[in-house]
């Protein structure tokens, strides 16, 4: 008798299991950085180059779109970094978040392009560089890769870090993108 009762209980459970769960809530991915733009303007204003790394759907899904650039030889450019979350409508400017927490962030510029160098052009309250604003100088014609890294919680006062040497910076990497650069 008990068994029959139990079987009927199981059957009703099987019926119960035919229902679906509710639609999951799609999270609001406000922390995502989809886009990094490095805008370079030559000092005389004659050349403006935009290096762009864009991955709208985040880590999975479609591959990112990278826009590389060609720079003029022996020229000084002022560089500005902009970070965006383009999943939001309109696009959210993440640069502001970095500015608010500038003591916890630093960009690093490394290049394999001969003669190309990047210097910091900004500082946080403690006088350590951030890298949102920079000065890029090219040498003679060359090819190579410019990589831009954003570190969260770096040790800014470690040896070489404020000169742009990433080696002793510790912290963790929030952004790391590479651009192919041609100087001509």
């Amino acid at each position, binding site marked *: 008798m008990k068994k029959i009762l139990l079987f009927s209980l199981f059957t009703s459970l099987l019926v119960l299991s035919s229902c*679906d*769960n509710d*639609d*999951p809530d799609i999270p609001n991915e406000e*922390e995502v950085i989809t886009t*990094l733009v490095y805008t370079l303007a030559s000092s005389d204003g004659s050349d403006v180059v935009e290096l762009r790394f864009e991955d*709208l759907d985040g*880590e999975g899904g479609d591959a990112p779109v990278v826009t590389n650039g060609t720079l003029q030889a022996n020229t000084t450019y002022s560089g500005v970094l902009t970070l965006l979350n383009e999943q939001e409508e309109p696009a959210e400017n993440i640069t502001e*978040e970095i500015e608010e927490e500038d003591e916890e962030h630093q960009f690093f510029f490394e290049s394999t392009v001969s003669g190309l160098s990047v210097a910091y052009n900004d500082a946080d309250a403690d006088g350590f560089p951030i890298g949102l604003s920079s000065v890029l100088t090219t040498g003679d014609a060359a090819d190579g890769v410019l990589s831009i890294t954003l570190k969260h919680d770096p040790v800014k006062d470690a040896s070489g870090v404020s000169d742009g040497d990433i080696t002793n910076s510790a912290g963790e990497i929030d952004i790391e993108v590479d651009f192919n650069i041609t100087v001509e």
Partner: protein
Amino acid sequence: MLFSLLFIVFTSNVSAQTCNLSLQGYVEDEGVDSPLNAVSILLVNKEMGTVTDKDGFFQFEKLCKGTYDLRFSHVGCTPKQITVNLSKDTLLFLSLGHTINTLESVTISEKSDNDAIQSTSVVSNQGIIDNAEENLSGQLEKITGVSILKTGSGIAKPVVQGMFGNRLTILNNGVSQSGQQWGYDHSPEIDPLVANKLKVVKGVGALEYMGSNLGNIVIVEPDRIEKESFLHGRTSYFYETNGRGNGLNLQLEQYSGLIGWKVNGTLKKIGDRKAANYFLNNTGTQEANLAVQLEMAVSEKVLFDFYASTFNTSIGVLRGSHIGNLTDLEFALNNEVPFFTEEKFSYKIEAPKQKVHHHLFKLHNKFFIDNSQWFDFTVAVQINNRKEFDIRRGGRTKTPTLSLLQNSLFLESKFQKNFDNDLQFKTGLQFNAIDNTNNPETGILPLIPDYLQYESGIFISNSKTINAFDLELGIRYDHTLQKAATISSTLPRRIIRYTNSYHNISAVLGGKYNYEDRFKVSLSNGFTMRNPAINELYSGGLHQGVSGIEEGNIDLKTENSFKTTLGLEYNDLKSLTLESQLYFQYINDYIFLNPQDEIRLTIRGAFPVFKYEQTNAMIYGWDFVGRYNFQNRLNAMLKYSYIRGEDRSDDLPLINIPSNNLFASVEYRFSNIKWGNKKLVNQLFVEINNQYVFEQFQLNEEQDFVAPPKGYNLMGVKLSINTNIANLPFRFTFKAENLLNEQYRDYLNRQRYFADDLGRNIILGVQLKF
């Protein structure tokens, strides 16, 4: 040795004639739930006596109505007496438990359940309390063939003969633990101090239990409530130097009339751990656990018990192991001391950290038809809430990056009948429903989707004894229905639903031959099936701790496992026991995370991609335990476990297979130490132990970011003292682990990329039974 006594009395309804009454009973060993033979029972006032047989059974016939004093005694125990008022035919169920003041016997941290055909090892209550600072996995590691998959010091999963996570069922109080078992860095949410008994079945199939095991199973059980009408209990406290950890456990129980109750609570607070040469910052743990147990006999044939437990923990994860991408990992690998290491101790737990709550409610009813057949009905509800916190930008560190709520409902109906011809028949029906939901507060695409899972199962299991042979034959069928609602990885985000239905069959055939208790040979064969788990099918995203992108695979099929074990036991019935178990497991379509050739570019850098794929795997090994006892004074133990795993399709070794290891200990007992005429100490035990863990030499270089760490040797000592203070039995323990402060890293600790394992730890403990 004293023993506590639990008994349940059943009397038949047949009215008996005077002086034709029978008094029968079964005696079992509370530690292992197996019958206890050779217990002598004396009817004190009648001067009649008998001894239990190998089923723990005894009987007295032709007794008159009246009151009888029964005196139970067992080898090495102080006799204990109970009183029975006999008015009709009566059956007693007794279990003899070894209480804290029974410490004249040696504490064996691992013993075998001799009655089981499949190899079963037990950690006793005393063993658990002596190691109160250990989590569940640490407790289980004392058993040969069990290793731990760790993430630092606070997070540990048991690995039994190479099986863990989705492949290892952990049965908490008869209910299969339902949480986020899939995660490598998710500990089982169980307090071993709230449980009183831990069992590991290193078998070929656990047919009675629901859950996706491939033969092995971990069983966590609280003791039944002692049938003592006065309020009593026990308490224990420990302090450990490494992490400056403190832990307090208190158990109280009472049986009044037909109702018994027991309350058991634990508080633990451990701060930053220390490796041999530096602090491991942010590796503290805090726990607060409570369990309430009630037992009630409604009538002679209907028994109810209720169990509710809550487990709550916060676990810090080493700050220096939180990395951004592969470049960070390379930096960390080349750095001897992890980043963010400070010369400052703290109890504070900050991000990255985990906060987990697990609650269990269980109602169980035992319904006896008669003495040889009964039903068991169980209803259980589990609530599991897991939140994980990472370092985040823009003040979001306080918002979890993973926030999962899992509710589950378990129903079970079992029937057991013991036939006169030594045939034991068990059957049962089980149903389990899981509702798993992501909390969207994270602001991150979830790693695993929301899902519903319904499992329904039926089993039949028979065991029979024919002379010196024990035989076991069983079969189980499960149906699993999964309904997952995933979120697309491409834009626009949309919901994709999947429904899967799986049929799983398991079967076991085993036998054991017992030659005069000296030699025992057992051979078991099992076939088990495991359908792919939700994370293996649908997980997707960046796995921070290992710098990889993990991808589920919707095309996965069910795994099929064939396992054979051969057990050999030798016992010279005096001082020497040897136990050996060889096992061989072949898993068809073994699901594993396979590194892909692809390196995926993201704004956070390039990441290697890992995808769940299937192969044919072979896992085999040997577990050995040898014990030698010299005149009840000296105890020596030697344990060795060897294991290999091979990917047969690709001719590669399997990853995450434990290292081989060798453990030896020698213990000496001093009794009745006196100071003048005054007895200071009842017993003093001195133990020296040594563990050697071999290098995991089987892996190929390209299978990991860095070669497996070197082998290491850890030495330990333990002193324990049993003494009476103000007539109360106290036990003091003093342990030193990693005595030589060896600097080492362990292959199965996922933090080995970043930091050394724990340095020296000295643990002081005090226990009191009242």
